[in-house]
């Protein structure tokens, strides 16, 4: 805007962040990280769950609809992807992935309907139905699992342009590409008129309606996009992390995890989805390694997992009460402090990040 630098409406800071992050993801990480463990147990699930958290963020952080059922949409996406690759000969992987997202989006619209009548905790309960219904449907009709009876279905290999992507590092690259594109898309929507409509509905629905925003359309759109992100995330999660398709992997606990990622990461921020996902994933790993390395296993594993739950519980309450913008806001504050230390003369960042 005005005389300030801008490329497609992005500020210099945006572009810097984008290039820096992409360089880290595509150059620094592959050079530094050699161990398969890091890819398959940390980076891959982190990016998959962060993608689902973006979906949750859109419906909850931006559109203000307290939905709980992200894992259900993930399951829909995962099984859609499995069936598409199984039944459609030569379907390109990315096409299957996007279609899986669309299948999940259809469920999103269906299970977003209660949001037109109820809100808050009631909506949360109503959307939980999606979780149970989708899992039930997959279990009930053998077709979805291709009549497999063993209980564990192996996911097909990811093949792109005839090249299989099977090693953790190769799969990591596939995920980075998808997550990058969908994150940019989400940021654009969130900062543009689409996001403003969501936030208007969130902050004051009557006024939003009086400005010509259709609550029906806006809420269902948010649910559909949320489910699309979750669906794609679920397919990636199944094909790259679980490497199998089992409905139990997408239980209510996963839905809660994604909800917590959004709350801890910061409601209404896209980067909060990544920060929250990292925290929820890494904190138990950290606790475990403290237990093993500092106390040499003297602390029982069950105690560690209860500590984990207590800490999550306390943090969620603290963040909900004192800092709804979550860790993303804390991160911004730290960054600003560092910047003002390094370059004390430069003005503090004026524009708020979305």
């Amino acid at each position, binding site marked *: 805007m005005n005389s300030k630098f801008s490329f497609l409406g992005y500020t210099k800071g945006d572009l810097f962040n984008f290039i820096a992050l992409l360089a880290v993801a595509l150059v620094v990480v592959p050079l530094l990280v050699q161990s398969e463990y890091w890819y398959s147990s940390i980076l891959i699930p982190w990016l998959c769950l962060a993608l689902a958290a973006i979906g949750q963020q859109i419906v909850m952080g931006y559109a203000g609809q307290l939905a709980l059922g992200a894992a259900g949409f993930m399951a829909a996406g995962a099984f859609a992807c499995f069936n598409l690759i199984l039944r459609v000969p030569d379907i390109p992987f990315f096409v299957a992935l996007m279609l899986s997202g669309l299948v999940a989006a259809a469920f999103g619209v269906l299970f977003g309907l209660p949001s037109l009548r109820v809100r808050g905790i009631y909506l949360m309960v109503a959307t939980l139905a999606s979780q149970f219904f989708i899992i039930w449907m997959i279990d009930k009709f053998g077709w979805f699992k291709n009549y497999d009876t063993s209980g564990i279905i192996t996911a097909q290999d990811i093949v792109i342009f005839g090249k299989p992507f099977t090693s953790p590092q190769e799969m990591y690259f596939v995920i980075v590409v998808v997550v990058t594109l969908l994150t940019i898309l989400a940021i654009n*929507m969130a900062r543009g*008129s689409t996001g*403003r*409509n969501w936030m208007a509905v969130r*902050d*004051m629905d009557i*006024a939003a*309606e009086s*400005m*010509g925003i259709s609550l029906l359309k806006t809420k269902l759109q948010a649910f559909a996009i949320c489910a699309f992100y979750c669906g794609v995330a679920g397919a990636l999660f199944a094909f790259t992390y679980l490497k199998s398709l089992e409905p139990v992997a997408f239980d209510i606990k996963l839905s809660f995890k994604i909800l917590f990622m959004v709350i801890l990461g910061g409601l209404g921020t896209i980067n909060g989805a990544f920060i929250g996902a990292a925290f929820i994933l890494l904190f138990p790993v950290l606790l475990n390694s403290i237990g093993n390395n500092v106390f040499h296993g003297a602390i029982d594993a069950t105690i560690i997992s209860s500590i984990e739950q207590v800490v999550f519980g306390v943090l969620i309450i603290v963040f909900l009460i004192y800092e709804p913008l979550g860790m993303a806001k804390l991160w911004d504050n730290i960054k600003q402090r560092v910047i003002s230390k390094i370059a004390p003369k430069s003005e503090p960042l004026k524009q708020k990040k979305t």
Partner: protein
Amino acid sequence: MTQGRKFSIGAPILEVNNISLSFGGVKAITGCSFAVLEHEIKAIIGPNGAGKSSMLNCINGIYKPQEGTIALKGKVLEKISPNIIARSGISRTFQNLALFKRMSVLDNILVGRKLHMKSNFLQVGFKMPGARAEEDENREKCEEIVEFLEIKDIRNTPVGNLPYGLQKKVELGRALATEAEVLLLDEPMAGMNVEEKREMCRFILKVNDEIGTTMVLIEHDMGVVMDISDNVVVLDYGKIIADGPPHEVRANQNVIDAYLGVAHD
């Protein structure tokens, strides 16, 4: 102030016909009819609880009157909802601020441009040239409004953090951004000091003068009403007890009684 107006007052643009509204047993409005003329500033006054806000809520589609019709430019509006009313060219502000608290001043005003922005979420998401051009144009419009209302220095502040008077201004800005033909303003100056009220009056008059926007305005301050309105409707216990130019209404015995609290028979 009627002489030399760029937009002289014309035919009825908004007609309220025999509206009745009740909540359970409480009758908020009983059989009210009045007309708002094109380009005029029409004040609605009356004691607390007279049904003024309910009237605006009926026009705007938030409340559904049990009886009566509302016509815009001679056409009776069917299936009234806030969304449909907004699309037919009526915008509003609220008595108890209804801003988007966590959004910035500029973003709040940009929501007012909603009906001027046609890009769908994919065009926005992919930053298609059309969507970008549209965003820039509408931002430009909002920057003009921000400049007009003299709130440039707070344009990026979340509105929830602003003092009451400024929030009232932002709400006016959001309504102006719609470029609606008719604005319904529910106590735009309530809780303001004399200075702020004077400023608000200036904005309202200027918009009416320069763009010709028709205004329906609820206000308790009689000085302000006498100063800026072309016509005044007086409501008391959900009924219209007077309708006419300010000086006539002020002299009306019913109005004097209502304000002095003379007992109803």
